[in-house]
């Protein structure tokens, strides 16, 4: 055991913290953050805002990749967490509890009609891995099919299916996965067969500049799945819980998946919980094979209490209505800006999941820096780096949308000026 060498670090001595971060996490991450003007310490959070170590206020247009749907530190969710830690704990993960059972029942009411069964994980990738395993286990087939441009997480199955360059460095991943071109009906018709276990897709590819699936294409996929006994897995980790102006993105497309993967929006970012919902038909697999797939921290009793209470807030507040309303206003204002600023070439997305597409990757990066300097935190898409994703809390007000639009306008203006200088 080493002696604690540093002792308590002087509060808000940012340089000291950053140099600690370099030693502990590596120079690379600190470099990446500073390159994107994100090398601050995230301190207080409130509503749609987060504050750095100097008390500078920013609109959180990132929401930790679509986690803070009800805003940062939502009062009632926080109350729920306080209540839960004073009564219960994680519980033994193999055991049953009223907390797990109640949450699952509430989710069955909240999720699209046919989704009846649930399994809980901690991170998104784990939930996607579980979904792929369920599909293989249920169908007895092994082929997992996805489309290009997807981004599902960092764990084995999720990574195998994602368009993530770095995966080449990790050796041979999960075999029998296939990628077909997005929105290509012919390719889908040819590829999906009786050998396929599941088709995995995001209806709005968040990290890929919010590229949207065509309704007709999706319907065709659903019917191909039905014909061949294939499961349809929809990743709603970023699109779920109201983000796109409906409870789930699949509501826009009038389609029922067999499995839905969901993210931390279930607790609005106060407790790490993700998971998947599935139909009662598919659930039979877990009835026949209990405890074949487990998560120590999945179905955590404290997490279940928090998620149950958060669901009630969702039901009462129906933030998807605000997401739809503000999304529309915001989009209109952005479209107007687009006509004035050349580097911005396209706007994609739904509700409060929007993406600005720039002509080049560097433009998008520079734009994010400008936006941050003007009080809005935004990140580029992980798949499409020419895109910048805007995903603020769904509780955002008219005034805050205007504030954000203003900041974006200034950022675009500065970007255009800079471009002229460069040219």
């Amino acid at each position, binding site marked *: 055991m080493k002696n604690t060498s540093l002792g308590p670090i002087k509060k808000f001595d940012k340089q000291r913290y950053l140099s*600690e971060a370099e030693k502990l996490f590596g120079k690379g991450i600190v470099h990446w953050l500073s390159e994107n003007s994100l090398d601050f310490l*995230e301190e207080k959070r409130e509503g749609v805002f987060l504050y750095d170590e100097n008390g500078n206020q920013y609109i959180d247009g990132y929401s930790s*990749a679509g986690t803070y749907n009800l805003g940062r530190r939502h009062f009632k969710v926080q109350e729920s967490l306080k209540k839960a830690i004073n009564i219960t704990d994680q519980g033994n993960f193999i055991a049953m509890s009223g907390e797990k059972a109640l949450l699952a029942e509430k989710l069955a009411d909240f999720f699209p009609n046919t989704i009846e069964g649930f399994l809980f994980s901690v991170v998104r990738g784990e939930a996607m891995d*579980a979904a792929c395993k369920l599909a*293989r*286990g249920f169908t007895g087939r092994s082929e997992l099919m996805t489309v290009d441009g997807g981004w599902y997480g*960092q764990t*084995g199955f999720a990574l195998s299916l994602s368009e993530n360059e770095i995966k080449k460095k*990790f050796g041979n991943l999960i075999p029998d996965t296939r990628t077909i071109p997005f929105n290509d009906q012919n390719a889908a018709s040819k590829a999906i067969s009786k050998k396929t276990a599941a088709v995995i897709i995001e209806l709005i590819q968040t990290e890929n500049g919010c590229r949207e699936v065509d309704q007709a294409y999706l319907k065709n996929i659903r019917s191909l799945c039905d014909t061949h006994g294939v499961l349809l897995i929809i990743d709603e980790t970023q699109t779920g819980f109201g983000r796109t102006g409906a409870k789930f993105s699949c509501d826009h497309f009038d389609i029922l998946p067999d499995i839905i993967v969901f993210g931390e929006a279930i607790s609005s970012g106060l407790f790490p919980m993700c998971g998947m919902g599935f139909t009662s038909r598919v659930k039979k697999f877990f009835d026949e094979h209990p405890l074949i797939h487990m998560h120590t921290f999945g179905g955590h009793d404290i997490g279940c209490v928090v998620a149950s209470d958060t669901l009630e807030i969702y039901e009462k507040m129906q933030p998807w209505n605000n997401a739809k309303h503000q999304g529309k206003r915001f989009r209109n204002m952005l479209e107007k800006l687009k006509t004035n600023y050349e580097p911005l070439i396209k706007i994609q997305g739904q509700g409060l999941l929007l993406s600005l597409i720039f002509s080049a990757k560097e433009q998008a990066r520079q734009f994010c820096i400008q936006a941050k300097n003007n009080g809005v935190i935004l990140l580029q898409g992980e798949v499409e780096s020419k895109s910048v994703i805007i995903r603020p809390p769904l509780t955002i007000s008219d005034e805050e949308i205007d504030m954000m639009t203003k900041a974006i306008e200034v950022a675009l203006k500065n970007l255009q000026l800079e471009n002229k200088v460069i040219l």
Partner: protein
Amino acid sequence: MVQTAYASVSNEDRNLILRRFGKHISQGQVRFLTAGHLDIFEGERNGIGFKETISGKTYIDAFSSAGCFNTGRRNQEIISALGKTFEVYDMGSTQFLSRPKIEFARKLVDLSPGDLNRVFFAGSGADAIEGAIKLARGATGRKGIISMKDAYHGHSGFSLSAGGKDHYKELFTPLMPDFYFAKFGNIHSVKQLASNQIAAIILETIQGEGGIHIASNEYLKKLREICDQFGILLIFDEVQTGFGRTGKLWACEHSGVIPDMMVLAKSISGGIYPNGAVVYRDIPILTDFVDQHPRFHTTLGGGSDLGCEVSSKVLDYLVEHHIYENARIMGNRLLKGLRNLKNEHPKILIDVRGRGLMVGIEYTHEIMGMLMADLLARVGVFAAYSGNAPQVMRFQLPLTINEQEIDQFLIKIKKAMQLMKIALFFILPLEKIPFIKKYLSDQGFLISISAKLRKLEFWK
């Protein structure tokens, strides 16, 4: 509502919960747990155990969610540390820096042996294993991973591929290629697989789910030598053995062998808020890769601000109260008591093994696992057997346990053994009949017979 930790729950409520659980999670799990008398609702949780909600009966928690409650159940110091964070923090933003993340990482590194000076976070044990294997492959540019037979590392893509039990894998194949399995504890078996094509050797220094098998110091030292010889990275999965469980803060300290990566989860959470981490050595092969690919394993649920505040407090608590020292002393007392019991009941117990408070007892027959879980529940002990190795029962008590509580626990085990003796008087003769013997090895059959035996309550 019926949230079981809250208030009294009636029998009617109980049926409602079981119905809900069966309908929305797994009917099979309800069946499985009921058969093993593990259909217990944990009510008020405190110290080394909990009160069952319906009966109000007190249970000693000898499972601790496979080693999550090292600091005891609902440790008030940790809970109040979490409570203090609410004014400012939530989970935080993935990839961004914050005071809690940096301070916890510093504390963790200072308490880790050797040059284990760097950290990345993960949401769970499995997620941390995913990251560790990715780092090993990415850093070495090699594909091969040597894992161990009977190993248990988790259920997601990489971790399941590294799992040493077919039971958890066979329904989901094909998994990742280039994973090779050595016989745990057998250095010759590793030597046969080691080469300069191998990125990492991954193992639990004490196999937990596999049935409490302890790797000898000699074996671990030789593994380190093999790794150094071929440029292989050594990964210790300390998810269950870390945070004081084995009588030292980290199990690797028993041997003095420093792995290249140490994978942590479970008790890092204080039993109240999920977290996970990989601590790795400050050596160029690893740090270069991470510096070039700083976002190679991002996570939202891992390294959250609230999680890091909790984990920081867990470390403080373990160190301030010398919890690992207590684990060593209490572990020895428990082992001694169990060995005495083994001598008294040679027909039931064939082995007692463990280190610190990571202890396992092995029965002479598989069916005893399920029966014993039931009998232990009757005497007020919550202990789980693995459906996969039902002949071994793991005891992973909270490390805050004291002498009287250990003795009380031993008395309960003794009582359960006596009941077991009566039960075996009826069951063992049946085993001599060939077709019944076949059934007795079948898990599905065990579940149904055990459920029936439980209903009969023939030992009353």
